[in-house]
């Protein structure tokens, strides 16, 4: 392997927002001063103990943190039965689905809304795919009395009706996006168009570790609470660090939040799971497995596209993974080989969705069902004393209607 390894994997990005060749600030001039303001405001907030104290208070009393690290005993047994020679890792779930609003998204939104308030911004916009980021943003806007506009692809509105109604109940305006492929990437385009138009009062609350610098860094920092808690909780449960981490990846914020605090622990194997849709030779959303580096939405990263640089439409059964890109830090971690990126198909995710529900009494969202699908493959290959953590990043209530439809079609 001729990839040069840095002394630490946790020092990025550089001052221009680059992780290796990835990241950067590829935005229109109108937005550039706003992004520089945001970078400055975030740096000040990060250095302010009062900001952290206030945030910790809301994380405890409003979000409900820490989320449990749960030993998934029956799934562990299931995987041990599937292994040859009685092997099989001990599987732990990081229970992000127990957070208020039902997913990890709220960790980041809380940080950004507190920052927006600090910056004196009075109007919040967001994009959403599955609706979980939209719901989290609508929730915190309700909590702090801020007007909230959520851009959501018309196709996603169709398959995530329940979340649309939740956002409306919370007082947010959901604006259907009918441009392009009518999914998450187009929602992000329209949110950026809104931001360019309403520069004075508006804060753009991005839902994942993508977009122009400082978003990938800032969202990562807010999500690192997942990995930081996991370190402590595993120490308490087993007296040592885990041996492997598994998380699903659309943009990659739940994965980055779990992975980042462990990047410098050489003994910890890390697996990201992209959505392989109908399979990597068909329609899918696996940017690393099936894409190449390009520039979209403010950053350079792996993207799905054609030979002319036109962005391709992603496909996944999970609306939250249905994005043709991935956060730039993931692209970098892939190139330097610190994280292994795998993929799970729609069918594998559906199987894991049902299995997890029946074995553990936990209905995962379709997004982490992709991660669980790979746990079912990885865990049986590991020894019995191997500690594996999978991030159950959201709960599956929102997916029940579409899962029922898929299963009905198959029956």
């Amino acid at each position, binding site marked *: 392997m001729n990839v040069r390894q840095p002394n630490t994997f946790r020092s990025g990005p550089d001052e*221009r927002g680059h992780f290796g060749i990835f990241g*950067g*600030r*590829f*935005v*229109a*001039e*109108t*937005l*550039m*001063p*706003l992004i520089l303001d945001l970078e400055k405001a975030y740096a000040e907030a990060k250095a302010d103990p009062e900001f952290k104290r206030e945030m910790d208070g809301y994380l405890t009393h409003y979000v409900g943190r820490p989320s449990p690290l749960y030993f998934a005993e029956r799934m562990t047994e299931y995987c041990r039965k599937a292994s040859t020679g009685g092997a099989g890792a001990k599987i732990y779930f990081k229970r992000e689905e127990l957070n208020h609003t039902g997913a990890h998204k709220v960790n980041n939104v809380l940080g950004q809304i507190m920052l927006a308030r600090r910056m004196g911004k009075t109007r919040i916009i967001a994009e959403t795919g599955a609706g979980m980021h939209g719901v989290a943003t609508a929730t915190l806007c309700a909590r702090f009395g801020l007007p909230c506009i959520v851009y959501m692809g018309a196709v996603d509105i169709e398959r995530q009706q329940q979340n649309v109604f939740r956002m409306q109940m919370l007082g947010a305006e959901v604006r259907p996006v009918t*441009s*392009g492929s009518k999914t998450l*990437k*187009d929602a992000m*385009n329209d949110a*950026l*168009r809104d931001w*360019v*138009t*309403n*520069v*004075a009062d508006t804060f753009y609350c991005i839902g994942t570790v993508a977009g122009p610098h400082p978003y990938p860094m800032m969202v990562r920092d807010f999500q690192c609470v997942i990995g930081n808690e996991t370190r402590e909780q595993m120490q308490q449960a087993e007296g040592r660090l885990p041996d492997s981490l598994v998380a699903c990846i659309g943009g990659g914020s739940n994965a980055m939040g779990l992975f980042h605090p462990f990047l410098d622990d050489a003994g910890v194997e890390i697996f990201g799971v992209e959505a392989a849709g109908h399979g990597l030779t068909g329609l899918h959303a696996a940017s690393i497995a099936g894409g190449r580096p*390009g*520039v*979209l*939405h*403010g950053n350079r990263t792996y*993207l799905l*596209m054609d*030979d*002319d*640089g*036109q*962005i391709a439409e992603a496909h996944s059964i999970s609306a939250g993974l249905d994005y043709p890109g991935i956060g730039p830090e993931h692209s970098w971690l892939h190139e330097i080989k610190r994280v292994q990126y795998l993929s799970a198909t729609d069918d594998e995710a559906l199987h894991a969705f049902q299995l997890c529900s029946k074995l553990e009494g936990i209905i995962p969202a379709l997004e982490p069902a992709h991660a669980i699908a790979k746990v079912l493959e990885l865990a049986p290959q590991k020894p019995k004393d191997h500690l594996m953590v999978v991030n159950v990043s959201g709960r599956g209530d929102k997916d029940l209607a579409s899962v029922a439809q898929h299963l009905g079609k198959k029956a």
Partner: protein
Amino acid sequence: MSTRIDARFAKLHQEGRAGLVTFLTAGDPDYAASVAIVKALPGAGADVIELGMPFTDPMADGPSVQAAGLRALAAGQTMVKTLALVREFRAGDDATPIVLMGYYNPIYIYGVTRFLADAKAAGVDGLIVVDLPPEEDDELCIPALKAGLNFIRLATPTTDDKRLPAVLANTSGFVYYVSIAGITGAAAPDAGKVASAVARIKRHTALPVAVGFGVRTPEQARAIAQISDAVVVGSALVDAIGISLDQAGKATTGTLAAVTGLVSALAAGIRGARREAAE
């Protein structure tokens, strides 16, 4: 380095009038129709031609330019064809500057070095790449200047005096002042605010200042022409194409005339401006 853009603005200065910069998306509604339209632009009164390089995700564009890009892509437009279109135009017109405008990804995927060489050879004079601010100058701006192409930067209402020098540092040809904070084809600009913004930019640079975003009518063009060196019109022209198409989205016998008619009216409005101001 003096380019067709420099020569054209020098000529406009001599004539004592502002220029008309027309924007159309290359390959809209299809390649053949687009070639015919672009070739007719100078005769109708366009002084500088901007050609949009279609992209699936045009984040700074409004519905009109988005639709034009999708029409061009659906008809099979590619970067190779956009450069071919420029070559065809250049064979019959060696004076009218052509500026390619768009987003970075199609250029990045084509390959920066190859793109600059092919664009220069085809007869392209300048580039406007919306998602390359000065912070990313190493990507394309510096190589483009070395290749002899103008790199035209957008200055916006959010570009304050502190930031202007950085925005202007590697800009050449002209400065494109975006008259509103917003997307293309949205609100109409306020001429009073634009006048003070242009004056502000001119305190920092000797380059000509073109003003665009939201200019649709000959009357608006005349008003902007009185306070700037050139007026950019895009969405209104793109809409003229859109409206002229048949139900299948194909060009009709009225398509060419719809564009040239509007360009002539805009040019007349602009040519009237300085005379009005001078009298």
